[in-house]
């Protein structure tokens, strides 16, 4: 008797699984991504938006960004809902990608290859060349040419140089024959400062120093040391382990990653090495920094790091802390400037999208002054359109009170280096060689001299393969 029962159960469950698995499909049709249901053809890859359905209903577009926290997800979800109502004939679905730690771009490459990537997605500026030369993103030059009122000069020059770069002709700007996407926003580094810690340490207020033009590497070191002295668990300075934070120190001393024309490694120039050496001393000699490789953000938000170097994108997360905080520009290096970056990322169009026109319309809608204003207001980055109006509005999006610090960073007088891809080489490969080597220096296992002696031999392999 018992045996029979067991078998019946097994049978039942198996049948059930058969039935059930099929049953979900109608639920999917009710869900917003209705058109994800596959076409009725034998071609298995055609899983998105079958033509038969598209003609009768709205065109469904999926778009994606990389949010770093829940606050940003909320911002973009809201934008998506608003644009959905605003754009005729287009139904939008916003999907948040993984955060920096979970390899957003890599996953995206895999999905473009697999045909499951969204129609429009955001990628960091450094990856534009790689995506473009691999044929993963659409060249929207023709669509842009047919669009009234579109001109590349509406946006910051740094990002648009790369976004309109034509790898075949080497031309750039309007009429170069290439438009790879439009910049979502720009950002730059600032130091998020814990005012309570600095006051407790009795150190000078960096904002005042900056206002008096005294905010240089020496002053920075003094504040760091004063706050570090508060306790073994309190650090003066913290930065994440990627190219942005360490690049600043190289830029500020007059060096940089690449030569002027971005065709060769410049990491071994005397200036670059001097900048790197100062940064190394923060970690090794003065021991004021959160150990390189440990994420300083939790520490900062827990009130244990006095100065935390990050972009505007960290603001929504920092807004939740319960101590007094503000931002200040990066300290000026021996070269006179802070060596800041002009970070940007762009909305690009999936090369395999079935609706290029609608996707281009979406890219434009996502980069209007209005949308960018909303994103900026809700806390994320700085508008990528060049407009005094947008900048004035940006200043009102507090906290932090000292929003001007960000604008000072992208001001032409601060000479920020625009983040950019390597059209003459492979940025990911360059990064994979440079990152670990610099980490070796900052953690004290390689000397700056040894680094300088060999780095460019290795890194130059990323060019012109």
């Amino acid at each position: 008797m018992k045996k029979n029962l067991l078998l019946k159960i097994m049978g039942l469950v198996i049948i059930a699984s058969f039935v059930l698995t099929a049953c979900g499909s109608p639920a999917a049709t009710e869900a917003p991504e209705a058109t994800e249901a596959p076409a009725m053809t034998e071609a298995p890859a055609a899983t998105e938006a079958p033509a038969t359905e598209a003609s009768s209903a709205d065109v469904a577009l999926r778009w994606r960004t990389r949010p770093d926290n829940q606050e940003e997800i909320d911002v973009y979800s809201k934008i998506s809902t608003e644009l959905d109502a605003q754009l005729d004939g287009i139904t939008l679905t916003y999907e948040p990608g993984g955060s920096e730690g979970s390899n957003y771009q890599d996953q995206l490459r895999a999905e473009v290859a697999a045909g499951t990537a969204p129609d429009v997605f955001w990628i960091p500026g450094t990856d534009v060349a790689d995506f473009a030369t691999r044929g993963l993103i659409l060249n929207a030059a023709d669509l842009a040419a047919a669009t009234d009122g579109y001109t590349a000069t509406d946006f910051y020059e740094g990002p648009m140089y790369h976004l309109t770069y034509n790898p075949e002709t080497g031309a750039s700007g309007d009429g170069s024959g290439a438009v790879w996407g439009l910049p979502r926003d720009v950002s730059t580094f600032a130091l998020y400062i814990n005012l309570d810690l600095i006051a407790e340490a009795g150190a000078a207020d960096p904002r005042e120093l900056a206002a008096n033009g005294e905010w240089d590497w020496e002053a920075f070191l003094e504040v760091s040391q004063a706050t570090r002295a508060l306790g073994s668990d309190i650090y003066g300075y913290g930065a994440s382990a990627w190219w942005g934070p360490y690049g600043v120190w190289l830029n500020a001393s007059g060096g940089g990653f690449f030569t002027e024309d971005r065709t060769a490694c410049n990491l071994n120039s005397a200036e670059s090495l001097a900048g790197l050496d100062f940064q190394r001393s923060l970690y090794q000699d003065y021991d004021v920094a959160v150990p390189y490789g440990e994420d300083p953000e939790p520490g900062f938000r827990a009130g244990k790091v006095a100065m935390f170097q990050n972009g505007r994108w960290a603001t929504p997360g920092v807004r939740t802390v319960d101590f007094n905080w503000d931002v200040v520009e990066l300290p000026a290096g021996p070269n006179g400037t802070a060596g800041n970056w002009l970070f940007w990322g762009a909305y690009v169009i999936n090369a395999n999208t079935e609706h290029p026109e609608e996707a281009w319309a979406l890219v434009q809608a996502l980069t209007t002054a209005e949308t960018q204003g909303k994103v900026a207001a809700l806390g994320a980055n700085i508008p990528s359109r060049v407009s005094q109006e947008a900048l004035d509005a940006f200043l009102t999006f507090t906290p932090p009170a000292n929003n001007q610090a960000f604008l000072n960073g992208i001001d032409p007088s601060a000479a920020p280096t625009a983040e950019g891809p390597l059209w003459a080489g492979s940025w990911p490969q360059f990064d994979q060689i440079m990152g670990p080597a610099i980490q070796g220096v900052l953690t004290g296992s390689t000397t700056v001299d040894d680094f300088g002696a060999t780095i460019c031999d290795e890194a130059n392999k990323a060019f012109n393969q």
Partner: protein
Amino acid sequence: MNMKSYRLVRFLNNFFVYFILTFFAFIMLFPFFYMLSTSFKIPSDTFRYPPRMLPRDPITMQVDGYDEPLPLYFVDVDGVQKEYALVRSNIKVGTYAPVDNPAAVVDRFISEVKPTGGVMNQQKVVVNGEEVKLFDVEVDGQVVPMILVSQTTVGEFIDPQDPESEPVFQNVRLSEPVENVGWHPENYKEVIELNNLGRALTNTTLVTVLVVMGQLVTSVFGGYAFARLKFPGRDTVFVFYLGTIMIPFVMLIVPLYQLMVLIGWTDRLASLIIPWIFTAYGTFLMRQHFITFPKEIEEAALLDGASRFAILKDIIIPASIPALATQATFTFLYAWNSFIWPLVIINVGNEKNHVLTLALNVLRGRASDTPNLILAGAAIAIVPPLIVFILGQRFFVESVAGSGVKG
């Protein structure tokens, strides 16, 4: 006498055995305790040093004359530790000393100290070659010009029972807050509802259940064919199966990915289920088990006219429940815990199809400042298999031991 010392030796011996065992048990269990306790903490509690095991909440109290409840701290009043309420923080305090006697320092609130000679043209002295500003500091009713040696900030604490009494000033960051043990199960709610762990849990359950059932069915049939039925080619196929058991999964990750692309299963739960239903190892284990089953019973049933399927269904499977359960548990763990394949095949943005391990990978990046949430997520992934294990502990461990010896 001899007996006594023997007993002593045995006692010491046993004591030593238990000491070693308990020591290792502590090491084995500690991360789990840590995970569970942290998952019930509030974020600020997770960053405390020295770390503490039990989750705690700071206590606040309503004090007369203040609108908001005030946080309580331990404060040292005349050598007695008392619970005082923090009224104000970030009060700047300077340490001042006369120029000629740097050792005679006094502490004053910076707001109460006036620059010597007024704000506009403050007097300065040269100390060690540097110009230093002078301040008028009152000492015992006399105004003495002094220099600022160092400065810091303090908080103002008052007795909550007697708000009018003398306040105490001390460093807030280093003051120990008054806390009581407080559990925050709402962390789980937050992580399940806001961070997609709920959907991931459902998906993981679904995938695991289907993989376990599917794999049992195919391995039982395959194992039976290998063990009991004679047909040409059987031994060749079996040797082929055996040969592939050692091949690690990562060998397949690239081609299997391209296969999934080809048939359009990328980003689909089907890709986490269907390929895992057919395993050489499971079939091998089933075959090893069925081969020990007495042949006579089966032959008798055959003579009675029973079909092979009926024999399998009515005689062999009911007698093989322990072996089936062994395999089911192995498969369960494998399917529940797998990471690299979902990472490759499921879209990061498509959170609807995330399994727990993937959701944790995303959570790790998004909630790096709230370890309590991350570890609540980890607990959701770890605890269900542990419960299964604790329920069927004896059986489980023995079946693993059995499979190991056989393998």
